[in-house]
C-alpha cells in the first residue's frame, strides 16, 4: 500500500526497538540510523509522496522539495553527530528521547499540512524535555517543567491558529501565509516562541545549559532551526521579521559577554545567530532565503561543535563555568583545537563555514536597502566573534591557569568533534556543494578581495578591542553569578506577585470566614443558653407541650386537606 516509509517513522521504529537491544548494539543503532535516514532523504524524489486520511483531512506526511530536503539532511547529520558524541551514554531514556526528538524534527520538516506539523511540533517538545530531566537533579526537573510549559504552549497556539486558519480558508496546507488574521498571527506567534523571539527567548538560555552533557548538543540542533524552517516556509517576506531578527542579533550578545556558564554563553549566541536567519526570512528575496537556509546548515554544525567542546570540558571537569576554568589547553589540546574551529566558523573567518553563509544575509539586507539593519548585523557579527569566538576558547582553555589538568576527551567525542570540524572547514573552503542544495539558484561569490579584507578587518579589530580591554582590565571578569533576563518576570516576579495576591485574598477570606463562624457560634451559644438543658425555656417546658404541637399539626393538616 505504502511504497515509502516517512523518514520520521524510521526514527520512531528505532526508538521502539532501542530499549530491547543490547547496550553496545544500541549505540551502533543510534549512530547508524541517522546515516540511513540521510541516504533516504538524499534519494527521495521531489513532490508530495505520501497522503494519509485523518478524520476527513488529507495529511501530507512527505512533502519533499529543496528546502525540506536540506533541513532533513542537516538534521540527520546533527542526529548522527549528537549520537556519536553520546556513544558512552547508557541511559535508555536519553537514547530513546534523542531518537524521538530527531525523528519529530525531521517529520515536521517534511510535513505538508498544519495538522501533521502540529503533531511533530509537540513531538519535539515532549521528546526533548527528557534530555533535560535526564540530568536527574531538582534544578533540572524544575527547568524541564518550565521548558515544557513553553514548548507545549507553542504547540497549543499552533493548533488553535491552524483551526482558525482552516475555518477561514478551508485548507490546512502549510504554505506561505500573509500576516493579518488572528489565525495567521497565532501561527506566527507559535513559530516565534520556538524561534526564541525577543522576550519569548528565555526558555532557551534557561533550559539548554540545564540538559545533560550530550543532551545539550542534541537540543541545540533541532527545535530552534525547525522554527526557522517553519518561518521560512510560512512567513517568507514578512517585513516585521526583519526588525524582530535584528533585535535578536543584538541583545543576546550583551548577555553573552557577562554570562559565566559557557554553555549559556553559547545559548545566547545561538539566539543571536537565529536573528540573522530571521532577518533573512523577513527580507524574503531568493538571495536572503538562500542565506537563511545556508546559515542554518552551517550554524547547526558549528553550534553543535562548540557545545560538544564545552560539553567535553564539563564531562572531564564537572563544570562549564568560565570562572572555574582556564588553562585546559595543556591537557585537552585536541578539544581546544576543535573549539577554536567552531569559534572561527561562528565568527565567519574566511575559510570557515560562517563566512560563506552569513554574508548572503548581509548582502541581501544591503541590496534591499535596509541600511540600519545591515549596520546592526555587522555589529552583531563583530559581537559574536567577541563573545563566542574569543570568549569561549579563551576562558575555557587559556586565560588564567585554573590548575585543572583533565584528561583529553574520550575518543568518540573527539571523532564527533573532528567530523563536525571537517564539515565546518569543508563548507568554508568549498561552498559549492552546499550552495547546490539551496532552494534557489546561487549567483554569489564569497571569496572576493573586498569581502575577505573587510571581514578580516572587522574581526581582527574586534580581536584588538578584546586584547586592549583585557590588558587594561576593563573586560568584565568571569564571576560566579546569574544574570537577570526576561525569565526573571516569571521565575521571580510572578511567583511573588501570586504569593502576595494569595496572601491578601487568603486574609480577606479568613476574615469573612472567622466572622461568620463567630456569628454562628454566638447563635448556637444563645440558643443553648435559652433552650439548652439548663436554659430558661427548658425549665418552663411542660411535658404536655408535645401533645399541643401534635394537635396543631393535625389541625393544619385538616385545614390543608379541607381546602385542597
Amino acid at each position, binding site marked *: 500500500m505504502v511504497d515509502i516509509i516517512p523518514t520520521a517513522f524510521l526514527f520512531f521504529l528505532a526508538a521502539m526497538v532501542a530499549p530491547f537491544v543490547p547496550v553496545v548494539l544500541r549505540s551502533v543503532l543510534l549512530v547508524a540510523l541517522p546515516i540511513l535516514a540521510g541516504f533516504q532523504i538524499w534519494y527521495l524524489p521531489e513532490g508530495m509522496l505520501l497522503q494519509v486520511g485523518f478524520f476527513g483531512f488529507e495529511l501530507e506526511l512527505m512533502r519533499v522539495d529543496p528546502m525540506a530536503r536540506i533541513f532533513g539532511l542537516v538534521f540527520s547529520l546533527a542526529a548522527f553527530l549528537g549520537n556519536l558524541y553520546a556513544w558512552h551514554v547508557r541511559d535508555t531514556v536519553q537514547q530513546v528521547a534523542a531518537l524521538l526528538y530527531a525523528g519529530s524534527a525531521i517529520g515536521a520538516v517534511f510535513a505538508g499540512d498544519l495538522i501533521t506539523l502540529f503533531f511533530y511540533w509537540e513531538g519535539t517538545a515532549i521528546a526533548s524535555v527528557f534530555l533535560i530531566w535526564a*540530568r*536527574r*537533579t*531538582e*534544578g533540572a526537573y*524544575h*527547568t524541564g517543567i518550565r521548558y515544557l510549559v513553553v514548548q507545549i504552549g507553542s504547540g497549543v497556539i499552533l493548533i488553535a491558529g491552524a483551526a482558525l486558519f482552516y475555518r477561514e480558508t478551508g485548507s490546512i496546507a502549510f504554505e506561505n501565509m500573509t500576516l493579518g488574521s488572528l489565525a495567521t498571527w497565532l501561527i506566527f506567534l507559535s513559530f516565534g516562541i520556538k524561534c526564541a523571539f525577543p522576550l519569548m527567548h528565555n526558555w532557551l538560555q534557561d533550559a539548554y545549559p*540545564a540538559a545533560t*552533557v550530550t543532551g545539550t548538543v542534541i537540543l541545540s540542533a533541532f527545535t530552534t532551526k525547525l522554527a526557522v524552517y517553519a518561518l521560512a516556509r510560512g512567513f517568507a517576506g514578512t517585513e516585521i521579521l526583519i526588525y524582530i531578527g535584528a533585535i535578536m542579533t543584538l541583545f543576546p*550578545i*550583551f*548577555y553573552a*559577554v557577562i554570562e559565566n556558564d559557557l554553555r549559556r554563553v553559547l545559548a545566547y549566541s545561538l539566539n543571536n545567530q537565529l536573528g540573522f536567519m530571521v532577518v533573512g526570512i523577513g527580507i524574503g528575496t531568493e538571495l536572503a532565503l538562500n542565506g537563511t537556509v545556508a546559515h542554518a546548515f552551517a550554524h547547526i554544525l558549528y553550534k553543535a561543535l562548540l557545545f560538544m567542546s564545552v560539553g567535553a570540558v*564539563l564531562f*572531564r571537569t*564537572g563544570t562549564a563555568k568560565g570562572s572555574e576554568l582556564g*588553562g585546559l*589547553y*595543556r*591537557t*585537552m*589540546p585536541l578539544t581546544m*583545537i576543535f573549539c577554536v574551529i567552531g569559534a572561527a566558523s561562528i565568527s565567519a573567518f574566511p575559510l570557515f563555514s560562517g563566512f560563506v553563509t552569513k554574508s548572503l544575509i548581509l548582502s541581501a539586507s*544591503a*541590496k534591499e536597502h535596509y541600511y540600519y539593519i545591515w549596520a546592526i548585523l555587522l*555589529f552583531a557579527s*563583530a*559581537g559574536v566573534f*567577541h563573545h563566542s569566538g574569543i570568549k569561549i576558547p579563551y576562558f575555557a582553555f*587559556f586565560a588564567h591557569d585554573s590548575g585543572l*589538568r*583533565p*584528561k*583529553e576527551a*574520550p575518543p568518540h567525542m573527539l571523532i564527533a568533534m573532528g567530523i563536525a570540524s571537517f564539515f565546518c572547514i569543508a563548507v568554508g573552503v568549498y561552498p559549492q556543494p552546499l550552495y547546490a542544495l539551496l532552494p534557489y539558484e546561487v549567483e554569489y561569490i564569497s571569496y*572576493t*578581495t*573586498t569581502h575577505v*579584507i*573587510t*571581514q*578580516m*578587518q*572587522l574581526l*581582527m*579589530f*574586534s580581536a*584588538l*578591542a*578584546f*586584547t586592549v580591554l583585557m590588558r587594561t582590565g*576593563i*573586560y568584565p571578569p568571569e*564571576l560566579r*553569578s*546569574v*544574570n*537577570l*533576563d526576561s525569565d526573571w518576570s516569571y521565575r*521571580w516576579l510572578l511567583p511573588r506577585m501570586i504569593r502576595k495576591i494569595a496572601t491578601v485574598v487568603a486574609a480577606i477570606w479568613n476574615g469573612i470566614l472567622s466572622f461568620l463562624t463567630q456569628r454562628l457560634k454566638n447563635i448556637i451559644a444563645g440558643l443553648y443558653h435559652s433552650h439548652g438543658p439548663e436554659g430558661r425555656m427548658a425549665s418552663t417546658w411542660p411535658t404536655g407541650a408535645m401533645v399541643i404541637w401534635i394537635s396543631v399539626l393535625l389541625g393544619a393538616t385538616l385545614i390543608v386537606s379541607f381546602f385542597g
Partner: protein
Amino acid sequence: MSKHETDPAKLPALGRMFLWTGNKSSVDRLVYGIYGVCALLFLADFFYEKHVYLAIEEVPGFYALYGFFMCAALVVCARFMRIFLKRDEDYYAPYDVESEDYPEDQLDKATHDG
C-alpha cells in the same frame, strides 16, 4: 604560573606545543603581532579596488573602526548592565541548576596523568 606547575614531559605532545601561551613575553609578542596585523589590514584598504554596495563602506578602514569601537562599546555596556543584572548564583535555587553540582555519576572525571 608557578602555582600549578606541571611537568611538561607528562603533557600530551600537542599540549606542549601551546605552552608558550602561558609565557608572558610570548603573549606580549602575540599582542604586538595582533597590532601589526591590524595595522596592515587597515593599510590594505588603500591598495585594492573596493566593490561595495554602500557609500559608507567606501570610507577607508570603515570595517576596522566599526569593529573596534562597536566591540569596545559592547563590552563597556555589558559591564554597565552587570551592575543591575548580576545576582548570586543561588538566586533561583532550588529551582535552577546554576547552584547545583553536576551529578558525578554522569561524568567521567579524570586527570591527564591517570
